[in-house]
């Protein structure tokens, strides 16, 4: 028997105990002001969504195709490395998203922390929140509304880098010819959201 085999015979830690300890750590971190970024995932008709919040509000919604681990690593870099799985802070956001996907909610009433969007992109995203549920606007119209009619391409970039998709409705921005165009969650997800909302206003 090698030294390592000998030590391997020591008791291992119970996974249920570790889960309980990790939950307790998230609670204490929040209570002591150390939870800079809390995150959880939610299931939705457009796949599993990652939700992340600072103490100020929801700061990130991410589709699976963005790579949830990569998104968490960027949050660690851009906001703070104090990132923990801590569902409690996101209970409200998870509930409102559930209601939205069930067709029972048209407007999100959540505190948002827009720190991941800067300058013109932020201006665009702020305007997007004024596009009503079930309606759409062209990239050109959004550019005009944001004060830069020539910046159609920049509007596309702002939408493609929207840190809060679904909640900040970049899916309501479509091409001038009426086709839905690109989407950071994939074109199929965009069509799904638009048809969900069309059904929502007819109901």
């Amino acid at each position: 028997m090698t030294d390592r085999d000998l030590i391997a015979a020591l008791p291992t830690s119970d996974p249920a105990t570790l889960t309980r300890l990790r939950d307790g750590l998230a609670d204490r971190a929040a209570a002591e002001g150390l939870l800079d970024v809390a995150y959880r995932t939610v299931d939705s008709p457009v796949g599993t969504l990652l939700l992340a919040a600072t103490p100020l509000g929801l700061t990130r919604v991410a589709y699976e195709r963005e790579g949830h681990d990569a998104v968490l690593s960027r949050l660690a870099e851009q906001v703070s490395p104090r990132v923990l799985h801590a569902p409690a802070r996101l209970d409200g956001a998870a509930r409102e998203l559930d209601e939205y996907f069930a067709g029972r909610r048209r407007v999100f009433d959540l505190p948002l922390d827009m720190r991941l969007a800067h300058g013109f992109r932020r201006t665009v995203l702020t305007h997007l929140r004024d596009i009503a549920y079930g309606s759409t606007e062209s990239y050109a119209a959004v550019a005009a509304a944001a004060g830069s009619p020539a910046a159609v391409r920049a509007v596309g970039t702002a939408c493609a880098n929207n840190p809060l998709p679904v909640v900040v409705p970049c899916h309501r921005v479509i091409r001038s010819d009426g086709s839905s165009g690109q989407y950071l969650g994939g074109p199929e997800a965009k069509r799904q959201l638009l048809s969900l909302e069309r059904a929502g206003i007819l109901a």
Partner: protein
Amino acid sequence: MTLPPFEHAVRDHGAVVHRVCAAIVGVHDADDAWSETFLAALKAYPTIRPDSDLRAWLVTIAHRKAIDGYRARKRAPVPTESVPDRVAAEDVAPDRDDTLAAALRALPDKQRVAVACRYLADMAYRDIADLLGSNEAAARRSAADGIAALRRVYLTDSIEET
């Protein structure tokens, strides 16, 4: 190079740090030691170098928390006889070996810590020496003496049982 999300440190090293805590302070106090360790680590996390060996860093904090715990409680070492009872009461994994855990708890502090750091956490002797406040040769000797003592107790016990 930037620091990974703290959650990844918990995910990757949480189980090992819990085993080290159990080895150093006993199964009964391991949960508290783990919680204090990770809370202190979370607090200090943004200030450490991105290329730090996270496991060694966490184990070093755990060791310090264990010493703090002893000082705070100002208690005598837990009698060896009581350890198996406590292990049984905690509903740990079925591959536990109470005899071995008890033998580990009975080792002198430096040997116990050196064995836990080396064989549970795979730490370099250089890091173990820093943690113990000694030198690399002494850390190596503590681990070797500790493992030899465990081997003696454990193998003797196995022979008696068969």
